[in-house]
């Protein structure tokens, strides 16, 4: 059942086998797998629950309701980068673009060699990916519905000899309503809110929405449950408190919130790895004025790729923007802004993302546990690679017949011809010259690895320092992934569910063993009492048997 705070009138005390904090790409699959394996699963999700009836083609409302802090999350540093995160049932998958890519071989190999993840074999990952792809109806975007923007860009890229294609997506019967990042209005996108969570609920999981977890209950180095509160969505004030006692706790709050929770609870901090190594895949974008209208919003916002430079960590992925989002990317106002907006239908848009080489990011404890600080400095080399990605997009747009291309680089905001590109290509761009950069893939802040000195979680997903505390979200990816991460997060989540299952099953055997020991201790105590009674009667010390019994009983209890 998916439950809202209005349904409760007193503080909640629940018992479960597994408490799952967060219902996104990590939490959803975990909840489904474990509830289908017969465990009692409680999912605690900070955001609200929205369905397709609520998805009304209004990006503004989507930002206010389904994005964390109305989509205002940014990284501090040069330049400031917008890093929006979902906060709703389904997590960021409810508002993401649906691209589903497998981990590049070279990255997996690096994880095996440098991060002690030998057991994470490509065979195992392939099996997990294949199962997920089937479950999520992953297939290449249909050229019939991708829209003009995608077709024009892809064809121009191919004319230039670049490798390009349609992206695999988790969409079933998609008709290209163009609203993926604001909630799919037909349930075509198989985000966690329409796939894993409903299946988990069918298998008995309980999902509590608008519930923020603040404390992880531990004793003797072992997780015993979580505590948090329900809040009123209008006032954001706490209403009731929530406590879930569970055998296993799984943190799935994402790469910013999970480290924040650990900082706040002073857990797993001895390796110093919590919060370190924040990777985000910084993104650039280009807007190109063409001669024909592109027919937005019909089409798939992110359907096409150019991977010519993927060996250098540069991916181009198409993204169309509704007018409101398009408007905020323009670095002008007044008449000039209006003039460009008036030609909005003629603008093609495309995006790029890079996999980090020399950029450095970190999550630090913030003014409140809900608001960790993310710092990020775009490295000089990465700035040049971002520039290269923008040049590449500009070249493709000019090949497609663009009259001008708008870039996010101060000093080169408008390129009017391929000739303007040579000035940009010669320039060494400083990180702070980028305006209005964004990123969508925070990861790496609680890395998985074989060495407790440098990793936060073991290869099984359990933390090195706290027994029965698992982490299962983007934070465990040990390096920048280089491709969109949701499918890999889901694959690792399903894998971790297997380890939790194993652990819980072993735990049940252990409980049986413990109860046998208890019985055996009880029998010993009774023998002791009988012996004491006999000795007393033999030596004529007829004291208060019940008292003796009590004494030995007490000592017995003390022994336990």
């Amino acid at each position, binding site marked *: 059942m998916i439950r809202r705070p209005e349904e409760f009138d007193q503080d909640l005390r629940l018992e479960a086998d597994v408490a799952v904090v967060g219902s996104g790409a990590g939490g959803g699959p975990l909840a489904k797998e474990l509830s289908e394996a017969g465990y009692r699963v409680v999912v605690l999700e900070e955001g609200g629950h929205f369905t397709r009836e609520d998805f009304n083609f209004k990006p503004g409302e989507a930002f206010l309701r389904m994005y964390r802090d109305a989509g205002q999350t940014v990284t501090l540093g040069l330049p400031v980068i917008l890093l929006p995160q979902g906060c709703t049932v389904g997590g960021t998958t409810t508002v993401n673009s649906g691209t589903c890519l497998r981990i590049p071989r070279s990255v997996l190999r690096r994880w095996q060699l440098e991060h002690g993840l030998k057991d994470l074999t490509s065979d195992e990952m392939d099996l997990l990916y294949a199962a997920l792809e089937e479950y999520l109806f992953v297939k290449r975007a249909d050229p019939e519905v991708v829209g003009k923007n995608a077709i024009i860009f892809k064809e121009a890229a191919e004319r230039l000899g670049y490798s390009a294609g349609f992206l695999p997506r988790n969409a079933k*019967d998609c008709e290209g309503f163009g609203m993926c990042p604001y909630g799919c209005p037909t349930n075509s996108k*198989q985000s966690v809110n329409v796939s894993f969570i409903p299946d988990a609920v069918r298998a008995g999981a309980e999902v509590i929405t608008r519930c923020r977890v603040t404390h992880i209950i531990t004793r003797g180095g072992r997780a015993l449950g979580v505590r948090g509160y329900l809040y009123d969505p209008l006032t954001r004030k706490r209403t009731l408190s929530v406590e879930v006692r569970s055998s296993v706790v799984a943190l799935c709050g994402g790469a910013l919130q999970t480290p924040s929770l650990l900082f706040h609870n002073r857990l797993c901090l001895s390796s110093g790895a919590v919060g370190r190594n924040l990777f985000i895949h910084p993104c650039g974008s280009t807007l190109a004025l063409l001669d024909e209208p592109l027919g937005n919003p019909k089409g798939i916002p992110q359907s096409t790729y150019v991977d010519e430079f993927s060996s250098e960590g540069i991916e181009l992925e198409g993204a169309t923007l509704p007018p409101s989002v398009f408007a905020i990317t323009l670095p002008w106002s007044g008449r000039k802004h209006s003039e460009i907006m008036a030609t909005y239908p003629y603008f093609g848009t495309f995006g790029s993302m890079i996999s980090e080489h020399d950029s450095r990011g970190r999550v630090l404890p913030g003014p409140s546990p809900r608001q960790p600080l993310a710092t990020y400095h775009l490295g000089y080399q990465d700035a040049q690679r971002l520039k290269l990605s923008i040049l590449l997009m500009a070249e493709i747009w000019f090949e497609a017949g663009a009259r001008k291309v708008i870039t996010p680089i101060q000093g080169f905001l408008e390129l009017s011809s391929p000739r303007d590109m040579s000035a940009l290509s010669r320039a060494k761009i400083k990180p702070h010259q980028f305006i209005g950069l964004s990123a969508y893939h925070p990861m790496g802040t609680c890395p998985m690895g074989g060495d407790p000195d440098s990793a936060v979680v073991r290869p099984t997903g359990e933390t090195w320092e706290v027994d029965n505390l698992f982490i299962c979200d983007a934070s465990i990816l040990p390096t920048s992934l280089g491709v969109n991460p949701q499918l890999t997060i889901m694959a690792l989540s399903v894998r971790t569910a297997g380890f939790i299952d194993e652990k819980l099953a072993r735990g049940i055997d252990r409980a049986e063993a413990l109860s046998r020991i208890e019985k055996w201790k009880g029998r010993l105590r009774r023998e002791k009492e009988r012996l004491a009674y006999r000795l007393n009667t033999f030596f004529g010390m007829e004291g208060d048997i019940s008292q003796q019994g009590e004494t030995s009983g007490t000592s017995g209890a003390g022994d336990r």
Partner: protein
Amino acid sequence: MILERYVRERISELSRLFIVPTDDILAPEPEQISAFCLEFMRQGTPGFRFLYLFTLISLEAACLLRKGKRLRELDSGEGEEFLQSLYRSRWAPLRALPLLAGLPLFFSHYDREDVQKALGYDVENLRREAALREVTR
């Protein structure tokens, strides 16, 4: 309340300077824009609230320093010139002022369906069409 009034006043002044109506661009509705901005601030982080207020105050101060006038006293030509000089500044924090101030303004204005329709972006039909299609697993 005082803060809310301050934000409302600044936002209506800025809407006039940031959004210039043309044949295809409808005039801004300052009330609708300030309601959105206030909600955007309320739902956001305290850090953003502080930064946004700071931006509004700094824009006013920069205007006084550069133009010797308050924002509301600028005509549209002067407003245009003033804001463009900030966008072109070599100093990143100065460039950030109009970018940040414009963010919720543009967002709310271009989220209006009549404004979108005037641009040829018609979601009304699509919404109706989408309501009839429900994909099940």
